[in-house]
């Protein structure tokens, strides 16, 4: 029995995500990622159910597991009640746990997700925070966003927000004691440990890749993972 498979089984999402797959391709037919990446969720399911240690290890280090957009369209349709999207979530968790995520271009992007989304959650209590979404990094947000950027507070004010204010309302300042509770939850439940692992393995990888690594987003490694695309992801 594969050790990695046993690890995956510890994740309830994996237990929910795959019972037995019949390779019918219903998931792939409806998968948004399979349309635009060289990706096949059917094969993901088949690979994990092989319980082959080497194959699963390769999967955990592969680009493949990072293509899914977690829209969960596959769950609606599977005739066996499986959900490749949930399998993917379990694989991604394990890949980060073991540090395998840094072996792929797409996997390395987890540092971005950790520092940006993770950072916003712990700093502001929101998953997204407009001040970090500038048109310098998100040009497709367009001229209207440029205009908002020039007037963050005033536009929010116009639309009934309570930007950085006390009490209730849109984009209010979430009280420090509430944020402390969230941070404590992260510590108790393994969220902080996950973050630390992502940092540690990314730092090692940056050294191996000879890219400058530092805190924040203005460093070579971070900018590399954010924008680099080897353009082979949708080639057979």
């Amino acid at each position, binding site marked *: 029995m594969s050790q990695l498979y046993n690890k995956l089984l510890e994740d*309830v999402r994996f237990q929910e995500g795959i019972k037995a797959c019949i390779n019918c391709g219903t998931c792939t037919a409806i998968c948004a990622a399979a349309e635009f990446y060289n990706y096949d969720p059917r094969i993901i399911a088949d690979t994990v159910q092989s319980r082959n240690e080497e194959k699963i290890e390769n999967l955990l280090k592969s680009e493949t597991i990072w293509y899914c957009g977690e829209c969960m369209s596959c769950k609606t349709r599977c005739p066996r009640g499986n959900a490749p999207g949930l399998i993917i979530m379990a694989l991604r968790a394990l890949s980060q746990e073991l540090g395998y995520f840094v072996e792929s*271009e797409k996997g390395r992007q987890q540092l971005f*997700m950790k520092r940006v989304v993770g950072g916003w959650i712990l700093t502001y209590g929101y998953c997204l925070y407009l001040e970090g979404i500038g048109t310098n990094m998100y040009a497709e947000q367009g001229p209207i966003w440029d205009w908002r950027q020039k007037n963050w507070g005033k536009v929010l004010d116009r*639309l*009934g927000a309570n930007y950085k204010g006390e009490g209730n309302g849109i984009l209010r300042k979430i009280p420090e004691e509430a944020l402390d509770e969230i941070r404590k939850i992260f510590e108790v439940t393994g969220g902080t440990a996950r973050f630390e692992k992502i940092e540690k393995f990314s730092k090692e990888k940056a050294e191996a890749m000879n890219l400058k690594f530092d805190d924040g987003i203005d460093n070579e490694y971070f900018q590399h993972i954010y924008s*680099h695309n080897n353009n082979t992801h949708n080639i057979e």
Partner: protein
Amino acid sequence: MKVEGKQAIWKEYQKDIAGDKYFYVRSCVRQNFFPGSETTFLRIMREELGKDIYEHPCHTTCTGIGYHGDVVPLDTMMTVVARQFALMTEAGYQNLVPSCITSFGIYTEVLDTWHHFPEVEAKVREYLRKATGREFKIPQNLAHASDLIYKFRKEIAQNAKFKLVDKETGKPLKVVDHIGCHYSKMFPEKGVGGAEYPYVLAGMIEDWGGEVIDYPERRHCCGFGFRQYLVQANRGYSVACSHKKFESMEPYKPDMILTNCPGCPMFLDKWQYAIAEMEGKTYGKDGYGIPVLTYEELAGMVLGYDPWDLGLQVHQVSCEPLLDRIGIKYDPLKKYNDKNGVSLGVPEKPSVMKVS
């Protein structure tokens, strides 16, 4: 297409939506991108419908984007969710109403997981106790904010100042609905109308005078995909999804797109701009884009709220052609003003897509 077939399916998926006393949790995406929508939602619920809808200053993100971006572990996400339940319980509420579809999906998934794995619920209760000392009750009713507007759509229709009708021709406007993936794809029975032919937005469109347009890629994801949009290197996937939808809906010449997920309207709005810049193609009439509205904006619009109170000015695709078609009055000079009526300057115009 036989609408009776859809009606039969809609009957199968009737969901229980509480009538009053809601605990409201905000959406991260909505607050950043469509603040006017949440303001409008609360205004409708409280002022038009007289409902008790409570907000707690200490509630936070559910961590949804972090969870589906796979940096936030399952246990962490569940415990944060448990904390929201605790705030609700402490405030004396039982009916949870998330503004966000990803949150709604997450709450549904958590409750389903706990139902199948009671030991997981016990573990999360222990985590929450340890981290915050809080206890909670499981919500009695869980409904997305769009479920509420759906539930009260007829009341809104009764108070409506406008119908979704072309004032020149008298014909109903053609509306494309786009449902957030996590509304019912994971748990079809938790969504009004199920997963394949959701009725939550279609019901609003019908009762407010419009015509629902079904097109082949109706069920396709907008392409957010969490990490797929947020990381620039992956955005080619994200835009390709929306692009596919636009190409598929184009022949039907829709007057607008209606959405119930916080992220989708932003993508369907912004990607029209980006596609125009990248490929020179626009999808609306006369070089404009197709206006993309949130259900709160649409409800406010038919109720006759000022378009600039709704926040239509923060859309990249101009909504004025739609307002004109319905015959809704607005003051173009006030579009880009602040609360005190002072101009904040005018955004630059895109180079391809026309804007008002």
